[in-house]
């Protein structure tokens, strides 16, 4: 195997944006939609968000309830495992810390399974959705989150590959063990750090 590909030089000598993890490129104004299931139509009248499992106070928020919580904004970059990154995007919603404060995790809780209305799921160590590193968001760049991007609300965990940020989020289940999610049982990396290129199982 040659160490480089004959005839390939990449996009010329442009300086690389330091915000891009290895193997990623800037998708610019586009925002590709990659989803494995049909886009659901969720009615905010009946929408709820649940934190359950190993918590002292299992809690269910309605659409109005969750939007009445103290808000939180993330401005930064997201990185898709298929190699595009979207730089300088702003999401608004609520910090997962705020939701966990209400539900009060038990000391035995070590992991989280995020689950969606479609049956999709993704998994995390609890520490990765705590400490200002995860949000439930409903606005993007000042507009309501479009349905195809997970609206009315999606999870946002921007320090991991974007498949972890489950669209059409329905809740978080706190567990005392790791439970791999939808893609994690289908060959994708269990943790998914873009800076370590943890794309697939074995990376």
């Amino acid at each position: 195997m040659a160490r480089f590909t004959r005839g390939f030089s990449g996009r010329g000598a442009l300086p690389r944006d330091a915000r891009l993890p290895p193997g990623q490129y800037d998708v610019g104004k586009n925002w590709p939609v990659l989803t494995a299931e049909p886009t659901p139509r969720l009615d905010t009248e009946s929408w709820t968000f649940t934190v359950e499992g190993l918590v002292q106070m299992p809690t269910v928020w309605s659409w109005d309830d969750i939007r009445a919580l103290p808000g939180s904004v993330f401005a930064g970059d997201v990185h898709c495992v298929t190699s595009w990154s979207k730089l300088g995007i702003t999401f608004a919603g609520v910090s997962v810390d705020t939701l966990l404060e209400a539900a009060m995790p038990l000391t035995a809780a070590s992991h989280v399974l995020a689950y969606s209305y479609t049956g999709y799921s993704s998994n995390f160590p609890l520490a990765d959705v705590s400490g200002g590193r995860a949000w439930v968001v409903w606005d993007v760049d000042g507009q309501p989150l479009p349905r195809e991007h997970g609206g009315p609300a999606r999870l946002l965990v921007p320090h991991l590959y974007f498949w972890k940020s489950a669209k059409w989020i329905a809740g978080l289940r706190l567990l005392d063990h790791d439970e791999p999610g939808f893609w994690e049982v289908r060959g994708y990396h269990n943790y998914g750090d873009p800076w370590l290129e943890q794309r697939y199982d074995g990376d």
Partner: protein
Amino acid sequence: MGIRRETATAKTIRIGLPRPSGHLAGQYYVVRLTAPDGYTASRQFSVASAPDGSSEVEITVERLPDGEVSPFLTDELRPGDQLEVRGPIGGWFVWPGDSPAVLVGGGSGVVPLMAMLRFARRNGTAHLVRLVVSVRGPEALYYADELPGPETTIVYTRHGPASEARPPGRLTARDLPAPPVGGLTYICGPASFADAASDLVVATGTSVADIRIERFSPTG
């Protein structure tokens, strides 16, 4: 490695592997290009060839004018070049081969569905699959010599061949077969096509839970 033209903008590349691919119909490979300065660019490409136990797989690459990887693969790559690939990957958009399946593809989204059709024909189980592919016109159809058959329908959205009775126009529910009893419907294409097609498939009576979608995004 062999390369052949599919359309004015797409080529099929046959890649020799060090071992049998072992892929399932619908899975993909990642192709990674490395520049002399160490810069790398990777993209995913669905396998078009059937699972056949061989050590070769075919991918079909649509050239995107502003792309980085696809123009290299369609314009620069020559038979005999070495290519770094990884796979097969993907365990969701796969047809196991033993259940009825409806396959709906838009444009280049036909690629993984072609692997399923070829797999069925190869196994003598073509009666299990129905493929509907939507293309602008005859010049945009991949696998034009091989794809047509009793189990396939080609829908032309802008202009069809003279022999085509259906007036050109977008895919409608009437172009689709009945839901596959005990099987799944696989939809592949650009996001806008996939969303429109999934609504139509639901209109034929298919349960949302029985639909699997692969959204192709033109990302270079």
